[in-house]
């Protein structure tokens, strides 16, 4: 009996526990792209808002703002959809490369646990809109998105936990700066995703062939 074999046993045990309980094919690149989409979306939204504020005529301004809401909403939906599609595409590609299955117990658990805070947050935001508390929408989205990441971190590579924590903190800070939601969004969803994606990419996607 050699101790080397036992060492191998232990690392095999760890590996199996990890592989069977966590979904490890999440692509880092998709995080970077999601961040870029969010930044581009935020810049376009910023332009639109600046244009409206430039209108001096009060009634014209009011109607322009009214029209802009659906455009801004459209931009937000487009950013989210593009991010999801890119994420799925790149993750499927990474899983295929690693000969892992995409839709198995571990990925299902990941999606479900990520979605619990996200859907709660989505419904909460609808309530905020209904109560006309528009200033709290940006903080709420950041906080619930952060909670989603933290909840998901138990079912995938653990690093996403830090992205979640940062977004929760950002969301809480932004409650004190109502009206600057767009900047917090751009930072939380844009810049933080790019940083997170880059870290993930270099940590897991490059050296693990």
């Amino acid at each position, binding site marked *: 009996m050699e*101790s080397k074999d*036992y*060492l191998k*046993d*232990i690392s*095999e*045990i*760890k590996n*199996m*526990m990890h*592989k*069977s*309980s966590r979904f490890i094919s999440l692509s880092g690149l998709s995080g970077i792209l999601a961040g870029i989409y969010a930044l581009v979306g935020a810049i376009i939204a910023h332009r639109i808002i600046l244009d409206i504020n430039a209108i001096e005529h009060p009634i014209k301004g009011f109607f322009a703002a009214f029209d802009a809401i659906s455009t801004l909403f459209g931009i937000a939906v487009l950013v989210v959809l593009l991010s999801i599609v890119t994420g799925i595409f790149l993750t499927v590609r990474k899983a295929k490369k690693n000969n892992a*299955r995409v839709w*198995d*117990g571990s990925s299902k658990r990941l999606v479900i646990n990520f979605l619990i805070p996200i859907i709660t947050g989505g419904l909460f935001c609808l309530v905020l809109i209904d109560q006309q508390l528009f200033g709290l929408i940006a903080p709420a989205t950041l906080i619930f998105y952060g909670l989603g990441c933290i909840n998901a971190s138990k079912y995938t590579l653990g690093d996403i936990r830090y992205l979640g924590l940062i977004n929760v903190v950002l969301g809480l800070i932004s409650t004190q700066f109502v009206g600057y939601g767009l900047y917090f969004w751009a930072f939380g969803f844009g810049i933080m995703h790019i940083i997170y994606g880059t870290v993930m990419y270099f940590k897991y996607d490059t050296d693990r062939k």
Partner: protein
Amino acid sequence: MSIIDNINKVFDHRIRLGIMSVLMVNEYADFKTLKELLDVTDGNLASHTKALETAEYIKVEKQFIGRKPNTRYSTTKLGETEFKKHIEALEKLINKT
């Protein structure tokens, strides 16, 4: 008492360790999942799960999902404690040498 005492003969195999590891961190796993994770043949996996079942370290539940038979496994309390003891013994052995 030597530390070898806690090295459990039932676990002294790569595939059995694998089965136990998966079941320790998951509530349960079915035959197909175990087979894919451990990359073993049906017969091989069946004989090792049988051994663990005989030792009463794992529970086997057979059920039907639709019309397909499905066998799923989970650890027993005994299996969990024995596996923990086994790992501790392994760690001690490694630290000794």
